[in-house]
């Protein structure tokens, strides 16, 4: 059974490799890389939870300096399905003792781990670690910067829906806290690479400086932003933003930017609704829309997350060309 799956996956992969050895930003990926990732991920999705041997003999360390539920579980299970050994470390113990995150990473690297998955509250941690280790580093979210696997799984979900290899001519409207969102950071980069038309809708307090330079259009009027959209992508707005003066109350946010059934009707009739989770029901998205609504793709996103992560892990730990990361420990 699993042998047949592996043969099928090898056929899909067709001896192709990624152009990079770490995944800390969507900026590293070419359109050829994206197409390879999406094709292989679709293959893994069909394989469900089959126990494979494609990553056997390789070790993965999930280094979550910032706690995570879904991303950590997804990365861990993905590696295990590929036959890899995994272990989880929280950064807080050594960090509390005063250890630099770079020293922590170098120590983990000395276990000859093949992949290190890094999540941090601060921007840039995965990218800096990638410069200090032999292992391939996968960014599982760094501060407000990026969350590349989330961006990839979101793009895959959209491509599936449109049964297409690009998002040319598709309007994606992203609503919510843009400034503090690592999900947005990766999503906007992957969507523009796939030629989507990207709109963002948020109060000006939740938009970072010069955000339009990503090649996107900013709306403060939710109705105009949703008009004719193919994808409505809601981001979580955290309660603490209220306390810091970004919005008066979540109540007012829900009234002005929350996605209700009526608002969703402004988008195209076949538009899909997406959210990276965790959803704050009735604030970001009306409760009735969350998981069971026909237009909601929130659970498909989660499933695609596993597929994307398995694809990346396989492509990174088992390179056909045998090339290795250019790295020298100084």
């Amino acid at each position: 059974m699993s042998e047949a799956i592996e043969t099928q996956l090898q056929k899909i992969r067709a001896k192709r490799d990624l152009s990079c050895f770490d995944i800390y930003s969507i900026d590293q990926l070419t359109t050829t890389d994206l197409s390879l990732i999406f094709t292989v991920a679709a293959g893994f999705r069909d394989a469900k939870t089959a126990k494979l041997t494609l990553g056997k003999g390789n070790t993965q360390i999930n280094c979550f300096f910032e706690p995570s539920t879904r991303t950590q579980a997804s990365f861990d299970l993905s590696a295990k399905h590929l036959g890899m050994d995994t272990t989880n470390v929280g950064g807080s113990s050594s960090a509390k003792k005063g250890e630099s995150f770079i020293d922590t990473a170098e120590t983990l690297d000395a276990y000859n781990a093949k992949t290190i998955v890094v999540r941090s509250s601060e921007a840039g941690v995965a990218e800096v670690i990638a410069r200090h280790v032999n292992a391939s580093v996968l960014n599982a979210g760094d501060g407000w910067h990026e969350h590349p696997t989330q961006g990839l799984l979101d793009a895959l979900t959209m491509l599936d829906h449109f049964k297409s290899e690009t998002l040319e001519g598709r309007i994606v409207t992203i609503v919510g806290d843009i400034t503090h969102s690592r999900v947005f950071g990766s999503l906007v980069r992957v969507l523009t690479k796939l030629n989507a038309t990207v709109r963002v809708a948020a109060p000006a307090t939740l938009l970072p400086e010069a955000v339009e330079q990503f090649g996107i259009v900013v709306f403060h009027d939710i109705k105009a932003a949703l008009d004719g959209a193919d994808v409505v992508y809601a981001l979580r707005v955290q309660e603490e933003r209220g306390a810091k003066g970004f919005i008066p109350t979540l109540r007012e946010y829900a009234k002005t930017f929350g996605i209700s059934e009526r608002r969703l009707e402004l988008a195209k009739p076949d538009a899909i609704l997406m959210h990276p989770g965790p959803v704050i029901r009735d604030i970001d998205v009306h409760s009735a829309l969350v998981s069971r609504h026909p237009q909601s793709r929130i659970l498909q996103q989660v499933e695609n997350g596993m597929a994307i992560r398995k694809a990346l892990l396989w492509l990174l730990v088992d390179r056909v060309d045998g090339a290795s990361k250019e790295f020298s420990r100084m």
Partner: protein
Amino acid sequence: MSSLLIENGHVVDPKNKRDEILDILVVDGVIKQVAKDISESADTTIDASGLTVTPGLIDLQVHFREPGREDRETIETGSRAALKGGVTTAVAMPNSTPAADNQSVIEFVLKRAREVGLINILPAGATTRGQGGEMLSEMWELKQSGAVALTDDGFDVQDPGLLRRAMEYAKTHDMLVMSHCETDALTDGGVMHEGWVSTQLGLPGTPDVSEDLAVAKNIMLAQKTGARLHLLHNSTRGAVDAITAAKAAGSKNITAEVSVQHFALTDEECVGYNTDAKMYPPLRSQEHLDAIITAIKEGTIEALTTDHAPHIEPDKLLPFEYAAMGSVGLETSFAVMYTYLVKSGHISLADGIALMTHKPAGIIRSDRGTLSEGAPADISLFDTTEEWTVDPTTFESKGKNCVFNGKQLTGKAKYVMVGGQIKMKDGDILL
């Protein structure tokens, strides 16, 4: 009696409008004569052919960390770094531990400077007690003990009411107030310039208006009180526009400086989460850099400084958001000025030297920064043709955190004299 003759150097002495090949005779630590072909013999003769001879450079803003953080820098290592860069006089900022808000710390710094005996160190005292921004420090006593200025530097006085009192009280005792202009409520945790680069990096940004508003506040209060105000390390278009306007309105009590990194480098240096490029105020975008250069060309700026800020490695090996702010600069400041302002054609060498010698001297009312006959013989000799790559591992400073790491610069100090004594020759410190 000891004498020293510097022969055939290209003397650039902006205060005295000298810019030609001349000899300089120094006797007993004082400049005796500056003329063509001095025939007198001296105990020591330096052939300065091909070199540029300037007054020893004056830096109005350095952090020598002593007392308190001798792991980062000491008065000795800071002085050695200064000499390597051709700097002979430095104003030491008061953010030591404890802060220089009392006569004991000022006297300690002066005593250490005398013991080390390398360069002239002029301490600045704190404007408020413990730089806490709540109660005035004993300014008269600070002045009596030797403080040349008052500043809370990195902890800008936020309360405009207190800042007004500070200026009024400083004026009472004829003290200079130096302000690092920052509006904390607008900076709000920002760690780099707020703009397209910070958005791409996902880092909290410090908006330009944080500085602009504080500069405007400081200028208005200086105009109201008549206190002498010096604005430290200006980095924004808004700041230099406000200063230009204040000067046009006749405010002679206001002076302003730029730190050399702010006309040389932009926020793009932060890409890759390079913590050496994290500083305060932050490296700004090109638009601001252009405005700063224009202000320098138009004469709005009186001084170029380093804001020399040494740190230990662990304080920079942190996520960008938590890394220490600042870059060392004493060993690169002349070369940065020469490379980015003179060589690139923005200003003349004489104008650049003026901004690093007699003009900053005027701000702190020092008679140094000239090659006038009778002046203390603080003299630096530079080779303005030498190209070199910045390698912080070769620095005298304990701080290896340098934003110019790896950059190609032109211009290097070859000899430095302080009070007529040769203290640095070809990169070697002479004790």
